[in-house]
């Protein structure tokens, strides 16, 4: 899903021309490289049905046979496919508008793939992923960025309401539709669902390491797994806030702000719990430095609107607190029996900020005043 932007491969592909369910036909390949997801590799294709287009995530089990224990890997790959398919079914059933819709899934006979069977998932086709709109463009559209963040928060809240945690929130998994009007979350391949077992449930870092919350990198996550999932998800959302303004995720900048002796032990052995506790003041200091530069950059983008910049910076602070025990919106944290990591206030907050910025962009006569 992360490679949905239309970039077709010139090389001939044996799957092109294959007919899928409901008359969909694979028309072109969109990514040259397999994407790994829980032991299974997948390729992206564009399928067509008349005028309609869709994205095909075709699972490639060939990599399984290169593994040391092919049967174990095969089991893992099948589980990964089944998990994502079932999860998409839950999303579809719950009518989650902010999650990329699965059109269908299935297995077709194809002599060119292992076992002669091609497993695939079929999705609505996105225009591009959010990364393209921000990384290569220093003068991003801030109103769109804030609206996109609002929609991401809404998408996460939809997932959480059904006990699903995305766990791999990153710019390439935010897909843009209808010429930037709508943004949706894609790729649930690394998600967690309270009612379903996933092959990656025991992973230390379920998503991408480069976006992960610091406590996971230091192997010092909360002992309450459910709380840690919520805390990580909020951090990933904070990383997106940072990315949309600074064009770099939060974790790499956070790590760069640390002294080498605090960074190198990331992957070492020993009592890392002690180390994380020890590094926390440095992480907090690094966070405050990053928040400063974030606010300065945001102030430039919103033409010196200090109130708005402070509000967004506060959202970033609450969501990226290096100490998971202190993470979360203060109002949510004050609730005695509430969830400190809940996203409700972020959804409404970004809605307000985005609306303010959109109104400023729209001429007064167009608003009918």
């Amino acid at each position, binding site marked *: 899903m992360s490679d949905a932007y239309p970039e077709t491969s010139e090389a001939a592909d044996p799957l092109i021309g294959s007919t899928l369910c409901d008359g969909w036909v694979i028309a072109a390949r969109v990514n*040259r*490289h397999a994407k*790994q997801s829980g032991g299974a590799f997948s390729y992206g294709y564009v399928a067509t049905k008349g005028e309609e287009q869709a994205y095909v995530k075709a699972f490639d089990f060939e990599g399984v046979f290169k593994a040391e224990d092919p049967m174990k890997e095969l089991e893992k790959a099948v589980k990964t496919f089944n998990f994502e398919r079932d999860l998409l079914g839950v999303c579809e059933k719950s009518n989650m508008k902010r999650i990329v819709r699965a059109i269908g899934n299935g297995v077709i006979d194809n002599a060119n793939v292992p076992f002669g069977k091609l497993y695939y998932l079929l999705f609505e086709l996105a225009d591009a992923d959010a*990364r*393209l709109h*921000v*990384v*290569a*463009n*220093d003068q991003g559209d801030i109103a769109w960025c804030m609206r996109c963040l609002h929609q991401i928060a809404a998408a996460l809240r939809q997932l959480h309401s059904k006990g699903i945690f995305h766990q791999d929130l990153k710019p*390439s998994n935010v897909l843009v539709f209808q010429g930037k009007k709508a943004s949706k979350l894609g790729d649930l391949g690394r998600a967690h669902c309270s009612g379903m077992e996933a092959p990656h449930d025991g*992973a*230390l*870092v379920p998503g*991408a*390491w*480069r*976006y992960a919350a610091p406590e996971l*990198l230091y192997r010092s996550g909360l002992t309450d797994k459910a709380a840690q999932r919520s805390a990580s998800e909020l951090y990933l959302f904070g990383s997106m806030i940072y990315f949309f303004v*600074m*064009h*770099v*995720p939060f*974790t*790499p*900048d956070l*790590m*760069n702000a640390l002294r*080498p002796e605090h*960074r*190198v032990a*990331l*992957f*070492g*052995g*020993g009592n890392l719990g*002690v180390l994380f*506790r*020890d590094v*926390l*003041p*440095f992480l*907090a*200091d690094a*966070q*405050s430095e990053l*928040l*400063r530069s974030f606010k300065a*950059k945001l102030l430039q983008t919103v033409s010196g609107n200090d109130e708005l910049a402070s509000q967004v910076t506060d959202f970033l*602070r609450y969501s990226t607190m290096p100490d998971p025990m*202190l993470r979360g919106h203060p109002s949510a944290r004050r609730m005695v029996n509430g969830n400190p990591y809940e996203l409700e206030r972020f959804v409404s907050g970004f809605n307000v900020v985005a609306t303010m910025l959109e109104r400023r962009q729209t001429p007064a006569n167009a608003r009918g005043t």
Partner: protein
Amino acid sequence: MTSVKQSEVSPEFRREFEALSARWLADKDVASASELLFAASLGYSDSSVHQAAQFLIDSPGVSTQLRRLAVGRLPKVEEVPAAEIEHKQTFEIRYLKSKLVEHPRNALAHVELARAYVSLGLTEKANRHIRVAIQLAPSSRFVLRAAARFDVHRGKVERSIKALEGVASRDPWLAATLVAVADLSGKPIKKIKPLRELLEQTNDPAEKSELAAALGTFELKDAGIRRARKYFQISAVAPNENVVAQLFWLSKNYGVNFDRSLLDRGEAFEARAQSSAEANDWENAIQACLRWLDNEPFAIRPAFEGGYIASEMLGDFKTAKEFAHRGLISNPKSGGLMNNLAYALIMEGDIVGAKDLISRAKQFLGNDEERERAVLQATEGLLLYRQGNAADGASHYIACILKARELKIEQVVQLAYLHFCYEELRIGHAPPFWSIEELQKVFSGDEVSKHAKIVFNRMVQPMLIARQKYGLIDSGYGAPLPMLVPPT
């Protein structure tokens, strides 16, 4: 760039990194380059990262932040020497205060602010911030060690000892700090056994080095070098800069083995200062003291050591004044540093300034600081000579020599005598107590210290040669004082 060793990297992360690297090598676009750089920021790198960083730097339209990240991933050409970094404490305080307004729970900023206040001599303000930092991060190794060092500086270690006692048995660094603080303040350690056990349980040589050194020092005082030696051997495996300095001192005084390559370590300024001084490399010793002072702005020892070398070994009074001034900022009540500054001022001709400093030093020196009081008497003697009062000047020098003799500080005896000689020769008198030949024989022999020989050759010998031309008057001090081994 500091990178994680390949073998230490988690397999999941390595897979992620390799996939991103392969993708960059095939796609060579902004998206794949930036994703690879994000992963490399976790400390893992290969040659593809440099290529990706260079690609992003050269690509038009890439955001400033991304470009900054890319520049950070390229190999560094050179580092700015720390000595070139200016001291802007006032600016730093303003900056840290504004940082704390925005992020009041930043314990590190509180510690840094305290450090900046201490550098300006504002100990009470510093104390408030140190206490807040401890409240915010009660088990942080960095915060507790900084607090302990600060409490030692202001001479009130009870709170630090109490805070450290609660956590020392779990953390070798904090245990080392507890032992060192208790040792410095002469307080007993309530439970030493758990600290010894902690040393045995700790596997990483770097983690256990400081604790082993601290326990070794404890044993050295308690039971002697034989029992302490095993601890020093453990501490020598992977020592930090503090332990290097300690080991160097032990090698000189107790014959403990010392690997000289340790002196090349980045921040071993203290040991480097000692080693350079031992090799008579005074310029490097002064540089090392300056870096040591930069590193530990509230430490008094680099100010003393650097000032002493500059004044006595080199006759560089400008540098001596700088050391004394910097030391006095964070130790404004140090009579010893006031004495050093007064001496440098007199040698530069500022008699009025020196007189004021000497009278202040007298107020601040405690009755137990007998060595400092003796040295101050010699400086006052110098002042009197320069004011034209040779008789009182001489009696001050003689009083200093007698006191130092009583305290058995031979180095002070010899140096005070040489300064006394110099002042007598300067006003045309013959050297006190001894003839010129006897003097030359004593200070070229093995009975005097290395430093006394250097001072003799730098100050007294040229004056002897210059004054001998005109003949010298015996000022009649009579028989030699019992301060040196009489020449045979």
